[in-house]
């Protein structure tokens, strides 16, 4: 087809005209498998991560479906005890380490940090690609663990169950997570160096979008906490394979030592999932409201505050584990302290909406969903931080509900908000807004229907990780499972209309939301080198007009 012919097509007319000097879009830079697998372009690596983690999400979601089906009846009829234990272990391991931890940072952090700070790429592009390969390598171990029959320790790998007694493929699972940990560490280092060294002229720390601030805080946690996890997993392997007595008292070890080490990583890991989500929501709320973020510095420093105090609260997972009572009181108090910076963010997002000019688009509906669900998760977290309350609801469905509100209601909803907000930038196509809004609605309603009944189940005393349960809990379990089917519909829809948009969607203009931020100043999708000229920044983040109108 001739060049003139191309431009005759009405659809092509909408494409932003690019001069050859601006370069081709990063998507057009090559379509061979080799051009993807050997790329060092942060945007392409982001797409590689998006595809990879979507596959892992599907695996973990399938396990969740098995769990919810089994729990429809009090008897263990669909799965055996062993099968159920393996289902929830796979669900936890894959969701935590192969979806949630990498979700927003490795897809959107990768894609957006260089664009938002006016850089050509991350500081170490080849290291970035190596991170993905390491992640995939760890993922292969997960798949091998599944292929050989799974593992039955729970995602928490508590000793001495995991190190001595469990009979699944524990070593394969530990190896998978160990390897994925290295990917996290390398990504964290890359983000920290990039944000320190590659900001465009004039892009001071005080002008960084909150998305970048929260990813900076996240990267600090990735680098400081993940090594503790990887070493701990090695110790479990040493005990299991070599019989070294570290955690099993029968071998002279201490089982609580494992819990301290595990939660020293795994509590901050919750903030690895939530801080990037808070960054996303800060972008979505300001863009929808067309307003500067209320209290920029409070929100920015609260991200660092969460990262810092988040390292000091791990003992709240151990109030009934045999930890000393004064240590427990200190951990309880610090857990309430860490709620302050989280509350600041929620109040500030709300204040940002005041006198805004709010576009009620799909991305904003996801952001609203995030705020509602995150608030619910945070407040029930306060309840769990209260010592006497935790003694009752620890290891019950109350805890299960709480952390799903944070990790799914919070982190996954924000991830989908990010997908809807930056999809046009990433792939250069608009999707159907109506379907996006329907999906956001299904997810919000389905999520609450799934997980709110679990608070009641937990308070009534139903322990977690039970495939059989007393019949009086059935009504609430059935309610929860029916909510889950609505939730599944909400998660399935975007897969359809977003993939449809890749071929049939309207071409996206550079700035479909009329949003501030450097990423909206380049074409959609951006050219390989992001900016033709390095941008010079002379204005603050969220530089929207004073009167609020676009």
């Amino acid at each position, binding site marked *: 087809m001739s060049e003139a012919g191309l431009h005759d097509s009405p659809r092509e007319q909408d494409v932003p005209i690019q001069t050859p000097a601006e370069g081709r879009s990063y998507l057009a830079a090559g379509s061979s498998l080799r051009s993807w697998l050997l790329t060092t372009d942060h945007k392409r690596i982001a797409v590689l991560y998006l595809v990879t983690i979507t596959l892992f999400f599907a695996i973990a979601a399938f396990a969740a479906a098995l769990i919810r089906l089994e729990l429809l009846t009090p008897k263990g009829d669909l799965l055996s005890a062993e099968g159920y234990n393996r289902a929830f272990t796979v669900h936890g391991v894959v969701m935590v380490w192969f979806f949630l931890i990498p979700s927003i940072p490795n897809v959107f952090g990768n894609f957006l940090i260089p664009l938002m700070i006016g850089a050509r790429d991350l500081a170490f592009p080849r290291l970035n690609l190596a991170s993905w390969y390491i992640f995939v390598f760890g993922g292969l171990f997960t798949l091998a663990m599944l292929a050989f029959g799974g593992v039955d320790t729970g995602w928490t790998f508590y000793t001495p169950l995991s190190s001595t007694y469990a009979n699944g493929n524990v070593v394969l699972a530990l190896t998978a997570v160990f390897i994925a940990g290295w990917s996290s560490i390398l990504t964290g280092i890359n983000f920290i160096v990039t944000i320190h060294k590659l900001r465009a002229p004039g892009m001071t720390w005080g002008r960084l979008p909150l998305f970048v601030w929260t990813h900076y805080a996240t990267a600090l946690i990735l680098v400081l906490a993940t090594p503790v996890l990887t070493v701990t997993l090695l110790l479990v392997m040493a005990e299991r394979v070599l019989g070294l007595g570290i955690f099993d008292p029968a071998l002279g070890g201490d089982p609580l030592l494992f819990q301290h080490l595990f939660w020293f990583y795994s509590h901050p890991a919750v903030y690895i999932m939530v801080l990037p989500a808070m960054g996303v929501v800060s972008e979505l709320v300001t863009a929808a409201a067309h307003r500067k973020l209320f209290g920029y510095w409070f929100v920015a420093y609260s991200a660092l505050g969460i990262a810092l105090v988040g390292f000091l609260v791990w003992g709240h997972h151990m109030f009934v584990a045999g930890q000393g009572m004064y240590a427990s009181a200190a951990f309880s108090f610090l857990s309430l302290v860490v709620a302050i910076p989280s509350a600041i963010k929620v109040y500030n997002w709300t204040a940002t909406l005041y006198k805004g000019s709010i576009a009620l688009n799909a991305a904003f509906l996801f952001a609203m969903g995030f705020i509602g669900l995150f608030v619910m998760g945070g*407040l029930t977290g306060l309840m769990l931080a209260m010592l006497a309350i935790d003694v009752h609801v*620890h290891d019950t469905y109350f805890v299960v509900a709480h952390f799903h509100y944070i990790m799914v209601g919070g982190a996954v909803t924000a991830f989908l908000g990010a997908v809807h907000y930056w999809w046009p930038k990433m792939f250069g196509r608009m999707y159907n807004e109506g379907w996006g809004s329907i999906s956001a609605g299904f997810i919000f309603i389905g999520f609450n229907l799934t997980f709110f009944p679990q608070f*009641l189940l937990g308070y009534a005393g139903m322990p977690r990780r039970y495939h059989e349960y007393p019949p009086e809990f059935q009504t609430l379990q059935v309610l929860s499972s029916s909510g889950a089917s609505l939730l599944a519909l909400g998660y399935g829809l975007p897969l359809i209309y977003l993939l449809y948009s890749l071929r049939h969607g309207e071409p996206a203009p550079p700035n479909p939301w009329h949003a501030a931020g450097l990423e909206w100043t380049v074409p959609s999708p951006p050219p390989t080198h992001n900016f033709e000229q390095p941008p010079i920044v002379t204005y603050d983040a969220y530089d929207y007009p004073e009167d609020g109108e676009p």
Partner: protein
Amino acid sequence: MIGLFPFAPAASAHARHLDTLIGGFSVLVALLAGPVIVLIFAFAVRYRRGKRVNRTRAEDRNVWLEVSWSVIPFLLILGFFVVAARMYFALREPPPGAMPITVVAKQWMWKFQHPTGQAEINRLHVPVGQPVRLTMTSQDVIHSLYVPALRIKQDVLPGRYTELWFTADRPGTYHLFCAEFCGTDHAAMGGGLIAMAPGDYARWLADAGGGGSLAAQGAALYARLGCGSCHGASAAVRAPPLDGLFGATVTLADGTTRRADEQYLRDAILDPNAQITAGYPAIMPTYRGVVDEAAAMALVAYLRSLPKGARP
């Protein structure tokens, strides 16, 4: 009254107290969060794009407002923190007269032993109105004893004693669960707590028989294992005397001191070389493999029962 929440029966004063605490706390957090949720919806409607409305003079910072909405909720919450912490501390301090029951957990069953010697599996009978203290340990992995109607649970660890105490005040049969995932049949590792009027409990004890009190069982074991050939008053081998040992302070060979509580006595039987008493040779063999956790608990009960004041 069955408690504040009809779906969650409450069988102790602590349980009802906790219901009140979480009920009050829920009201507080609803007051803190309610305005946020309402305002988000109100703003989304009032300031939706395209609507003509006054948008002038919107602040983008207000330090006093931000400090106050950070600090005031925190201070309100601290009040609940104090109450919850005091209740938690109380759970850790059993009253002196509490009835001791020993608990040994293993994959996937609970074994309870009453002070009068009766043993039972997965079901625990207790009298109402009487404080009960459980001393618990595990033979393999970590378990957790959980009675939702009492609103209490405590992890049960291998190699270590943990305690739990309660006073049930409402007769009935309540769920007793294992709350810490412990392997394949975790979900089946449960049974019931049967709280009974004191007279019914006495009748149950009589029916259940039992081979003498736990201390008497320990004494028989002490004799059978020949412990007295070293620890006895007229023994040829010099070993620490055991009369009055329970509750005394022991000086170890490395100069540190320890209170001779249940944990200390258990460790001294199963892992004697870990804590050598000062002035005695390290010659006691380990009884790990000879004495299981339940037998160790009987021995400890016997040592507890020895006459006090006989210590030099």
